[in-house]
């Protein structure tokens, strides 16, 4: 068991190592280095020399990679060209803002998805299922920027209930954030809920068709007791992994949503740093976002292992 956990963590670290290589080599191979890209037409003379010195571009690539990697492991991401300050200072408030947005969305999204998934599965092909499933298909296929724009148009402009655009500085306090994030949270959790509800639905349907559930029904176990004791634990377990993958996939959508609502999180930083051609920040963001992805998947793997008695005994026998 412990060995297995260590192996999973090791695989995650290898993945992150490859990601760091890919981003580093990618920036290295694509035309232009960080300084000429950032300075564009002013890339000559003293400014270029200063920038090269600042980023240490005058040493060979592999040395720079080793330097950069060891600094990242110590939590130092380097220097932001456009912000003219260490990347860590740029990142700090952004990470906090995105974390608030993401955790509120997840806290609302997951329970809602489970409830909707169960309802649609138990009333399969009946009116509640058809209605909810149609809505989920719509909200999971429509691009984030469209649902976000429609939300602003309907809720903020036509009904005038909420501010359409978040106008807070990136170092806003927690309470300032909360009153501003209702619409972004709705936009993100809508898509997330739709994806997860669909998975819960098909998982519950699969379990409902299994032999042991048929057995329970024949034995005369009351319907709701059967649902809660026999179906749900078996149906929700395999959903954990898929939910994790979905959350990780939605990182891309969060970027777009943050831009639409002008929300000062990591996502908007992605766009800002790429528009400013600030490659050191882009590299840092790639590693951070990839770590989040790997981390979420790792947690899901471990949770499945812990919660599933069958997998546990399987590993011990091995």
């Amino acid at each position, binding site marked *: 068991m412990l060995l297995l956990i260590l192996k999973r963590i090791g695989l995650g670290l290898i993945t992150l190592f490859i990601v760091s290589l890919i981003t580093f080599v990618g920036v290295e191979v694509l035309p232009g280095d960080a300084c000429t890209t950032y300075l564009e037409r002013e890339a000559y003379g003293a400014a270029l020399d200063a920038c090269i010195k600042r980023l240490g571009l005058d040493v060979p690539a592999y040395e720079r990679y080793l330097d950069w990697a060891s600094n990242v492991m110590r939590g130092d991401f380097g220097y932001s060209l456009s912000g003219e300050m260490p990347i860590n200072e740029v990142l700090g408030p952004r990470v906090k803002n995105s974390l608030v947005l993401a955790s509120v969305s997840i806290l609302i999204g997951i329970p809602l998805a489970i409830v909707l998934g169960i309802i649609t599965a138990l009333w399969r092909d009946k009116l509640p299922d058809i209605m909810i499933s149609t809505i989920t298909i719509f909200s999971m296929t429509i691009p984030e920027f469209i649902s976000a724009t429609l939300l602003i148009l309907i809720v903020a402009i036509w009904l005038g209930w909420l501010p359409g655009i978040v106008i807070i500085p990136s170092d806003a306090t927690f309470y300032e954030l909360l009153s501003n994030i209702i619409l972004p949270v709705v936009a993100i959790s809508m898509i997330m809920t739709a*994806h997860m509800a669909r998975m819960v639905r098909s998982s519950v349907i699969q379990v409902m068709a299994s032999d042991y559930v048929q057995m329970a029904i024949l034995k005369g176990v009351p319907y709701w007791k059967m649902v809660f004791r026999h179906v749900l634990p078996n149906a929700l377990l395999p959903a954990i992994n898929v939910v994790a993958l979905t959350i990780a996939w939605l990182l891309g959508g969060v970027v*777009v949503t943050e831009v*639409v609502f002008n929300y000062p999180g990591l996502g908007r930083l992605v766009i800002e740093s790429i528009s400013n*051609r600030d490659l050191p920040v882009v590299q840092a963001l790639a590693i951070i976002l990839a770590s989040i992805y790997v981390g979420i998947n790792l947690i899901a793997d471990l949770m499945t292992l812990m919660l599933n008695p069958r997998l546990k005994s399987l590993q011990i026998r091995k």
Partner: protein
Amino acid sequence: MQSNLVTEDKQKNKLEKSFEILKTMASKPSGLIGLTIVLFHVVLALISPYIAPYDYKAISPNTMLLAPSAEHWFGTDSLGRDVFTRTILGGRTALTVTFFGSLIALLWGGLLGIFCGLVGGKIDDVVMRVVDAFLSIPWILAMLLIVSLLGTSTEVLIPALGFFYGKGIVRVARAATHDVIAKDFIVSARARGHSNMSIIWNEIIPNVRDAILVEGAMRWSWMLLGFSSLSFLGFGVSPPTPDWGLMISNARGLMSFAYWSVIAPIVGLSSLIIGINLTADAFAKALGIDRSTKAPV
């Protein structure tokens, strides 16, 4: 003569089989709706240059932000361009780029996946680790980086999208190959002394084709989503090319009083994505493949 007959028969069978699949897809309302929408958009993309009532890039200060009327069915945008014209033209670039992008993704993802599944061992391990690593970079970051360094021409976008969306197909193709490879007919083909190439071509590809095609159809809709998100963020096609993502992003600032110029492209893009999704779902069901428990990676 005999052999001619056989091939003819085979071809007829193939046609009949595709027709059967289409019929099964259209037999359910969701599949029929999906197919109709996709067909509508493809036809519209083909004929729109000939039926567009105005020039899509004609700017005029006299016709700025007009509400929908008999002359301008969907109104005009902030530069006085006809929204109806731009909306019916708006799907052309997106459809072309994502269609060829999906083809590229299918080709390299499918072949690499089959190869990995077949060879196994160290090569397989290394390739799958790299694919995992690519999967864990958010698509938006990678695409933005490529586009901002290499430019936003379609010659860059098609291979970039094709490459980036192919990595998930590698996994599917590899898993499908793993399922097939242990079957008796592969073992007997090996025993007959067939080469690896012949086994891939004659035994494996016909058996994993369905799974890969379904995955490719799904990826087509995700690629469309990715492509239009790029346009929306200003990293996709460049103005004045009519494109839905770009139109939405331009009209967004003025939507409090000119909502028509944002609604039209929204309806266009949403309907196409929903149509492709419904079609892909129906396609998967017609081929008997269940993808409902899969995560969108």
